[in-house]
């Protein structure tokens, strides 16, 4: 008897019958912390959010709660709404014509960020962002880092110097650039530029750092440095990272949210998502069967 004569076999075993079927899951009742994680204080509470770009709906009834000082990864195929949701968190979508949260609310530390009393400028000081394409300003490294503080009117040289050092150390860049703080930030390598952007973001001491595919343009070594950094930063900051790299989500994040077609399909501890996702779509996506 050989393998060839075996009866035709099924593909992988079907998902365990105990898991609830959540095909196109209206994960409505999921405004709860990710499953199987030690309890932590929620800092971001996204509550039944519908989001539109003009007439087209980009997010459908998304609810999830993100914990403080944890790394949350948003994964999903392109156009699934993960970046849209990320940019909702510091209202960067306000810059786009016709973009609006049509229903639901987003609360950060209990405060609805769309409330009239909320100044979007103040919000963005608390919720920093790192972009897909590293975008250091064509200024010196020093000026890049102090940009945010100078906007706030900080002029004291001593304080600025201290913040520059602290932020660069925090972004694991200090040793590499301490001798050329007044050289242009554009002279740095791609990975260093992205870490400079991270340093710039942490210089204003936000609570939350949003990262929109921060490593997609980086080589593997730079990527691992940024991942290392994320691991360090979560001691002080709450981090939300959008990534196309599943391994990266698995390596860096504590909890993972999977989006598909503008809906939140599954939100759980990263371990669970990658070991035993409860939704077949999640499983298919993380094992590279679609997306």
């Amino acid at each position: 008897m050989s393998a060839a004569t075996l009866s035709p076999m099924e593909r992988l075993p079907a998902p365990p019958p105990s898991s609830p079927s959540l095909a196109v899951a209206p994960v409505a009742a999921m405004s709860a912390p990710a499953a199987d994680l030690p309890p932590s204080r929620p800092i971001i509470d996204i509550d039944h959010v519908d989001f539109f770009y003009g007439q087209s709906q980009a997010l459908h009834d998304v609810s999830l709660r993100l914990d403080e000082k944890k790394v949350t990864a948003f994964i999903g195929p392109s156009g699934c709404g993960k970046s849209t949701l990320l940019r909702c968190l510091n209202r960067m979508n306000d810059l786009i014509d016709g973009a609006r949260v049509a229903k639901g609310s987003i609360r950060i530390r209990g405060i609805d960020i769309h409330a009239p009393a909320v100044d979007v400028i103040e919000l963005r000081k608390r919720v920093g962002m790192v972009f897909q394409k590293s975008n250091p300003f064509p200024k010196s490294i020093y000026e890049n880092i102090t940009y945010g503080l100078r906007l706030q009117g900080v002029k004291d040289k001593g304080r600025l110097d201290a913040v520059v050092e602290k932020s660069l150390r925090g972004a694991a860049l200090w040793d590499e650039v301490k001798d050329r703080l007044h050289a242009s930030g554009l002279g740095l390598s791609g990975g260093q530029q992205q870490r400079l952007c991270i340093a710039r973001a942490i210089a204003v001491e936000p609570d939350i750092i949003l990262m929109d595919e921060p490593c997609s343009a980086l080589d593997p070594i730079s990527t691992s440095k940024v991942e290392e950094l994320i691991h360090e930063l979560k001691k002080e900051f709450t981090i939300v990272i959008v990534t196309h790299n599943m391994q990266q989500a698995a390596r860096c994040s504590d909890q993972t949210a999977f989006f598909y077609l503008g809906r939140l399909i599954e939100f759980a501890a990263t371990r669970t998502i990658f070991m035993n996702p409860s939704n077949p779509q999640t499983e298919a996506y993380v094992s590279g069967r679609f997306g």
Partner: protein
Amino acid sequence: MKRFFDTELETFRSHLVLMGETSIRQVRDAIKALVTADIALADRVIAADDEVDQLEISIDDEAIRYMNLRSPVATELRFVIVGMKASHDLERVGDEASNIAKRAVKLAAEPPLKPYVDIPRMAGIALEMLQDALDCFLHTDADKAIAVIRRDSEVDAINRQLYRELSSFMIEQPGTISRALELMFISKSLERIADHATNIAEEMVFLAQARDIRHTDELKKSPLDA
């Protein structure tokens, strides 16, 4: 969406099934050789152990290759890990079959101590357990796997009963000692085979539910222990 390397996973699965079927056949043949005092059959079983060993090596190789190059996650990852572990258990099952065959050759030279009833029964249960456990590679079914685990105590009970029986033979008739000892070892081998089936069944629960139930004892309680 089908992936170009899905066939690797299918090959892996078919090798596991083949290995399972081969080791079950080995055990069955060994017991048959014992009961029918068929030395030729016993020799074939001993010779065929190599087949199982080779399968283990190729399964390990495939699993390592798949984990290394295809970065499996979720069900696939569990499947590959479980398959690799099961192949070690099956290899041990093959070894036990060959042990039984060796003892069958020795016993064939002498008249049977008593009619072989308990040992074939025990073998039947152990092989059923093994078969059920391995079925989960094709149809993941945690309940079936848990049922396998629960049956382990049946085999243990027969083993203990045979032990007492054979001990009394040895005490009463010292001339039977060598044959009784061989049978005791055979019984022990079958008990080990059932243990391997249990191990595989425990892995199958992990495959189905990503839940590690080893050494938790909760499932081992069976009606017979009560």
